[in-house]
C-alpha cells in the first residue's frame, strides 16, 4: 500500500456516513457524539476523517478561484487600480500616518494584496511553473512586482502559438495583468477582458494590454469583438462599460459598435476594418510605453476621398468599410479608404463537427467518449450498471433533470387500440406506434408493458470493458455487433419499448455557432442465444423531430442487417426523439441497437459568413 493510502471504510459504514453528514453541516448533536466516539477509536478513523475533510477543503479551494477572480475584476472594472502603496503613503501627512484611519487603510490594502496574491498564486500554481506573472513579463516573483499586478482579463483561446519573445509566453486560462505584453511569431491567441470584450491577436504580432478596455498593437493583426451592454443591465444598475480602444503606432481605433479588425504593418501603417457596428479612427504617433499620442506629433490628418484631400481629425467607419492610416514624407498621417481590406481571423474556437449521442447518454456533452452508462426509460434516472430486468411503464413522459442535453424519456405502453404517447416536454404526441397497414388494411397491434434494461451507451469493444463473456444481459450476450458500428463508436442499446428525446436547443446553447443538422446512425437487431429458437426479435424503430415522424423502419429483424439512419434536421428544431417499439409478436428478443449515433453539426448562418 502507498504511504499516502488510507483505510477507506465502506460507503455504508457508520463512520463514513457520519463524516459525510459532518461535511455537509447536517450532523445532529447525537450524531456528533457518536462521531467523536468513533474518531477516538483509533488513528485509522481519524486519518479517514482528515483525508475526507481535506478533499472537501480542496474541492472548495479549487472552485474558489472563479469567485475570487470575479470579485477582484469587478472591483477593478470601472477604472484600473494599481495597488502600489508608495505614492499614497508619501502624499500623507505625518499626523495622518500612524492614526487609526491610516492603520485601517493599511490593513485594507494589505488584505487586498493578500487576496489578490492568493488568487494569483493559485492560478500560477495550476498553470505550471513556466508561467510568467508580472507586469513586465520578467520572472521575478517579489511582492513589489505583485503589487503592480492588476488583472483585466484572461487568456481564453490559443491555437498553434509560437512565441517571438519567450518572455511573453503564456498558457490558456492564465490571467492577464495590466501592462502585459504578448509577442507571437505565429498562431492565434484570444484575450477576454473582464468587461466582455474579446481580442484575437494573430502572429506575427506584438500586443500590450494597456487598460481594462484596450491595448497597444505595435505590429501584426487583431480582431476585437465587444459585447454590447444591454439597456436592461444599465437600468439594473450595472456599471457602464468603458469604451474599448486599440492604439497603434499611427492611430487610435475606438469601438462604437461590435466587431472590427486592425492591422499594423512593419512601418507602423494601420489598417482598420469594421465587421459590425462602427469605429472611429484617429491619427497620431506613439510607441510602446507612451501614455498617449505625443503632443509634438499631433497634427491634423488628411483624408483622401474621391481624389480630393481634406483635413480631418478623425474618420468614422461602418460595416464593411476599411481605412489605411499612413504617414507621408512630411510625417502627416493620411487616411485612405481601402476597397480590399486584409483578411482577419474572427474566431479562434473550433466548434465540434459532430456530437456523439452515446457520450450524451453516458452523461457527457457529446464531444467526449463516455460509455457504459445509461438511463432508465421508465423513470428518467441515471443508470450506472446494465441490469437486464423488466421495467414496467407508467405511461408517463419523464423529464430528465440531471442532463441538460436530454429532455426526457418514455416507455410507450398501448395495451389496446391506439393512444397518444407523449414524445417531449413541449407536449408533442404520437398516436401511430400501434398502427400498421398490411395489404391495404389497417391493423392495430398492441404494445406490451415496459422494456428490458436501460437505454444504454455500450462501448464498441465489450472485451475491453472487462465484463464477463455471456454475462450482464442482452446487450452483451449479443456479441460485439460490429456490423452496426462501422465507425466503431459503440451501440445505443434500445430494447423495446423505449424512447429518448434529446434537447437540440440546449446543444446549440452549449456549443455556440453550430446546430445539429443531421442525425446519422445505423439501426439493427441484435441476435444471440435464445431459449425459444422459433422466436425472433422484430421491432419498429422511429425518429421524430419536434413530434413529427421523420424516419421509421417497421418490422426490423436481424436478417435485415445494418439499416442506415440519415435524417436532416432544421436549424431551429428543438427536440429529437428516438424510439423503438415491439413489432410483430410482442417484445421477446427485441434487441434493437442504434450503432455509431451522431448528430452532424453545421455552422450557423452568421458563422458561415465569417468563414467566407
Amino acid at each position, binding site marked *: 500500500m502507498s504511504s499516502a493510502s488510507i483505510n477507506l471504510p465502506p460507503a455504508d459504514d457508520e463512520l463514513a456516513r457520519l463524516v459525510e453528514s459532518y461535511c*455537509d453541516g447536517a*450532523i445532529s448533536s447525537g450524531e456528533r457524539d457518536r462521531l467523536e466516539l468513533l474518531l477516538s477509536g483509533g488513528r485509522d478513523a481519524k486519518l479517514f476523517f*482528515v483525508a475526507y475533510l481535506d478533499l*472537501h*477543503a480542496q474541492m472548495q479551494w479549487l472552485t*474558489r478561484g472563479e469567485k475570487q477572480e470575479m470579485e477582484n475584476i469587478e472591483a477593478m472594472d470601472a477604472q484600473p487600480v494599481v495597488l502600489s502603496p508608495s505614492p499614497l503613503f508619501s502624499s500623507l501627512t505625518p499626523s495622518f500616518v500612524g492614526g487609526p484611519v491610516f492603520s485601517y487603510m493599511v490593513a485594507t490594502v494589505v488584505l487586498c494584496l*493578500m487576496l489578490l496574491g492568493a488568487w494569483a498564486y493559485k492560478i500560477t500554481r495550476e498553470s505550471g511553473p513556466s508561467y510568467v506573472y508580472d507586469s513586465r513579463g520578467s520572472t521575478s516573483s517579489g511582492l513589489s512586482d*505583485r503589487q503592480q499586478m492588476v488583472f483585466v482579463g484572461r487568456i481564453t483561446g490559443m491555437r498553434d502559438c509560437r512565441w517571438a519573445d519567450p518572455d511573453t509566453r503564456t498558457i490558456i486560462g492564465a490571467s492577464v495583468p495590466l501592462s502585459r505584453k504578448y509577442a507571437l511569431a505565429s498562431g492565434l491567441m484570444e484575450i477576454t477582458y473582464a468587461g466582455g470584450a474579446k481580442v484575437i491577436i494573430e502572429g506575427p504580432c506584438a500586443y500590450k494590454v494597456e487598460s481594462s478596455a484596450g491595448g497597444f498593437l505595435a505590429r501584426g493583426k487583431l480582431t476585437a469583438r465587444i459585447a454590447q451592454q444591454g439597456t436592461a443591465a444599465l437600468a439594473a444598475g450595472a456599471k457602464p462599460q468603458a469604451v474599448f480602444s486599440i492604439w497603434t503606432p499611427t492611430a487610435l481605433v475606438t469601438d462604437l459598435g461590435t466587431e472590427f479588425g486592425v492591422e499594423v504593418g512593419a512601418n507602423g501603417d494601420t489598417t482598420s476594418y469594421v465587421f459590425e457596428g462602427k469605429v472611429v479612427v484617429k491619427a497620431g504617433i506613439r510607441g510602446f510605453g507612451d501614455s498617449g499620442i505625443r503632443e509634438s506629433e499631433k497634427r491634423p490628418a488628411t483624408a483622401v476621398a474621391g481624389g480630393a484631400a481634406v483635413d480631418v481629425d478623425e474618420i468614422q467607419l461602418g460595416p464593411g468599410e476599411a481605412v489605411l492610416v499612413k504617414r507621408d514624407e512630411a510625417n502627416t498621417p493620411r487616411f485612405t479608404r481601402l476597397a480590399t481590406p486584409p483578411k482577419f481571423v474572427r474566431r479562434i474556437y473550433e466548434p465540434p463537427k459532430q456530437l456523439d449521442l452515446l457520450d450524451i447518454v453516458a*452523461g457527457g456533452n457529446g464531444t467526449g467518449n463516455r460509455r457504459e452508462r445509461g438511463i432508465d426509460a421508465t423513470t428518467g434516472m441515471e443508470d450506472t450498471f446494465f441490469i437486464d430486468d423488466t421495467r414496467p411503464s407508467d405511461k408517463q413522459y419523464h423529464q430528465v433533470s440531471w442532463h441538460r442535453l436530454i429532455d426526457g424519456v418514455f416507455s410507450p405502453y398501448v395495451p389496446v387500440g391506439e393512444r397518444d404517447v407523449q414524445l417531449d416536454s413541449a407536449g408533442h404526441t404520437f398516436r401511430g406506434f400501434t398502427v400498421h397497414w398490411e395489404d391495404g388494411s389497417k391493423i392495430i397491434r398492441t404494445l406490451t408493458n415496459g422494456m428490458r434494461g436501460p437505454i444504454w451507451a455500450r462501448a464498441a469493444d465489450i472485451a475491453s470493458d472487462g465484463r464477463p463473456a455471456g454475462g450482464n444481459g442482452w446487450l452483451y450476450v449479443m456479441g460485439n455487433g460490429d456490423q452496426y458500428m462501422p465507425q466503431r463508436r459503440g451501440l445505443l442499446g434500445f430494447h423495446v419499448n423505449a424512447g429518448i428525446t434529446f434537447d437540440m436547443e440546449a446543444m446549440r446553447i452549449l456549443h455556440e455557432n453550430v446546430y445539429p443538422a443531421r442525425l446519422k446512425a445505423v439501426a439493427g437487431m441484435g441476435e444471440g442465444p435464445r431459449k425459444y429458437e422459433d422466436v425472433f426479435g422484430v421491432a419498429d424503430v422511429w425518429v421524430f423531430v419536434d413530434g413529427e415522424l421523420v424516419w421509421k423502419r417497421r418490422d426490423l429483424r436481424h436478417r435485415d442487417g445494418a439499416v442506415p439512419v440519415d435524417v436532416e434536421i432544421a436549424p431551429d428544431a428543438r427536440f429529437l426523439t428516438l424510439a423503438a417499439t415491439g413489432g410483430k409478436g410482442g417484445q421477446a428478443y427485441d434487441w434493437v441497437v442504434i450503432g455509431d449515433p451522431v448528430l452532424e453539426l453545421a455552422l450557423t448562418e452568421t458563422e458561415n459568413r465569417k468563414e467566407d
Partner: protein
Amino acid sequence: MDNARHEQFAQSFLKHQDRVYGHIVTMLPNRHDAEDVFQQTSLILWRKWEQFEPQRDFLAWACGIARNEVRNFLLRRGRERVVLGERLMDEVCELRAESQSLLDERRTLLVECMKKLDFVARELVERSYAGRESIEVIARQFRTTRNALYLRLRRIRRELMECIEEGLVKEEPQ
C-alpha cells in the same frame, strides 16, 4: 517592514495558503465559515509577521493561528453550529500536521480525479462548491431536491476518494 520581509511573507503565505485553508475546513466544513476565518487568519498572520522567527515552521505557525481564530469564531457563533469537541479537534489538528505529505500527495491526485468526473457531476461540483448559488437554487435547476443533491455530492466525493486510492496503487512502485 522592508521589502524583503514583505516578499518573504508573500512567498510563505502563498506557498501554504491552501493547506491553511484545509486546516480550517477540517474544523469548520461550511464554506462561508471557513472563508471568514481564513480571511481573518490571513490578516492576523500579516500583523504578526514581525514576530515570526524565520527558523520556525511557517505552516505550523499559521495553523496555530488558524486554530485560535476558529476558537474565536466558535465563541462568537458556535451555538449555531455542531462541531467536534476541543480535545478531539486538537488531536485531529495534530494528526493533520503529521500527515501533511500524505495530504499533499492525495491533493495532486484529486485534481486528476476531478477531471475524470462526468460532465454532469463536474458541473454539479463546480456550482455547489463555488458558493455563488444556494443549494436550493442548484437543486431546482437540476430538477431535484436539496437532499438528493447532497446525496449526489456525497457519492461524488466517495468516487473521488476511491479514484485517489486507485491512483495511489498505480503510482506505487512494483
